[in-house]
């Protein structure tokens, strides 16, 4: 009896001494650093300035979230395909990397509510006759590997049964190939397309048409089971819109006009 009581006492003491199970939100606050995976060859969402410092909409969103959490932000550069290994291996806490929230991907990672929505444009090289997006049929087209628009465009080429689809590794290579005439057309976000046509880095390209796809809603991602963090990110995104910070950052990085509506008519989230 005595031993049982003693054992019970020891167990109770041990149970009290054990810290409550910490989740990722706790870990981030305790470590004082929020590590964000950001794609830095995807202006205006992510790029580097003349001093090689990461800048862009996504970079600012990571900084804002870190400020809200009371920690410092650490930007970890990733490519689109490397986002998931970076998350899974624990080298970043979240990805602020314009990740499209597809149902297929949601089986693997945890998505917040959308924080941005892209419209996509069809960009063609100047020498080619192209009036609407449908003129891409039978042409050599390409896009950045692993993106929403690449998946859409490849599907279209398969559906048309003619032409060729080429997934280049990054946005810069897509526009280089287009400018050289290796590609006839590409589909890229309106933001990226306008920035690249304006920059003059890729001569001989023009915006032709809007791509007729559902707006590309992008969300923050973290591990699927981190509900605490996902809840926090949802509220953060809501507050960014509510406080006008979303519109402010849109103006800073994208330009005049209103940012995309992040709600969908007629349905709950």
């Amino acid at each position, binding site marked *: 009896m005595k031993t049982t009581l003693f054992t019970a006492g020891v167990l109770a003491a041990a149970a009290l001494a054990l810290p409550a*199970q*910490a989740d990722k939100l706790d870990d981030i606050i305790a*470590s004082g650093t929020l590590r964000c995976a950001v794609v830095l060859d995807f202006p205006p969402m992510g790029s580097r300035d003349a001093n090689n410092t990461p800048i862009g909409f996504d970079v600012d969103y990571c900084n804002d979230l870190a400020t809200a959490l009371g920690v410092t932000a650490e930007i970890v550069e990733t490519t*689109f395909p490397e986002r*998931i290994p970076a998350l*899974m291996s*624990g080298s970043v806490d979240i990805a602020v990397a314009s990740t499209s929230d597809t149902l297929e991907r949601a089986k*693997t990672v945890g998505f917040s509510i959308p924080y941005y929505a892209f419209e996509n444009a069809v960009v063609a090289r100047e020498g080619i006759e192209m009036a609407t997006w449908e003129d891409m049929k039978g042409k050599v087209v390409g896009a950045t590997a692993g993106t929403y628009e690449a998946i859409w465009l490849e599907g279209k080429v398969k559906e048309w049964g003619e032409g060729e689809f080429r*997934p280049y590794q990054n946005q810069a*290579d897509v526009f280089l190939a287009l400018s050289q005439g290796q590609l006839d057309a590409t589909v890229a976000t309106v933001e990226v397309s306008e920035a690249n046509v304006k920059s003059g880095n890729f001569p001989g390209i023009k915006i032709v048409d809007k791509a007729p796809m559902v707006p590309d809603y992008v969300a923050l991602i973290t591990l699927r089971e981190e509900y605490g963090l996902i809840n926090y990110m949802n509220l953060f995104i809501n507050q960014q819109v509510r406080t006008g910070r979303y519109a402010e950052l849109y103006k800073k990085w994208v330009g005049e006009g209103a940012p995309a509506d992040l709600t969908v008519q007629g349905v709950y989230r």
Partner: protein
Amino acid sequence: MRGRVPRIGHSCILPGAAMFNYNFRWNQALNSLPQMLEGALVTMEIAILSMAIGIAVAILLTLFRLSGNRLLGAISATWVEIARNTPALFQIYMVHFGLGGFGVHLSPYLSLLIGIAFNNAGYLAENFRGALKAIPETQTRAARSLGMSPLQAFKNVVMPQMLRISFLPMTNQMVWAILMTSLGAVVAMNTDLYGVTSELNARTFRTFELFALAAVIFYVITKVITLSAGLLAARLFRY
């Protein structure tokens, strides 16, 4: 994982069941196996073609070097220097975007094939040079004294021995050629094993199963090719 409290409840005991924060779902990856095997065929095709072209060009480069002609020797030396002292990734990229800048547009398939063949030729030419050093010059002289032309002497006497001596380094290069096909991603190659795998990954985010599967397929391909090269050698190089 700085300052992380190790978490209970995430079992990492069963191999393959859970790795860090990832649960393996093999059935989904295995469903895409047929697509990946089709990619593996393309990978083998490129590797074999690049090797055939590489051997032919390397023999030509070796002849250039032996010719005694300054210009031909310089071409051969430059080729070998560039192929061996720059990354294969750079070589493939330059075939596509470098030539593209001059208006020469090659498809991803051709860019990759030519890039790897260029690399193969450079390395193989060096292998052949080493092999030639092991063949006594008296053999060429003996062949010449039998009335063979220099080219005949090379073709009938020296080259068979050269290929035999450099056979093992050639299988090494073959394995390297197979693995180099994965660099096709930089020139938008999407039908080879690596290209197919990374597109499946973009769509499903099942990174670890897909790439583990691709690694196994790569391993099997290289094994099959080295083993059949051994069999081929046993047939070709019988005394």
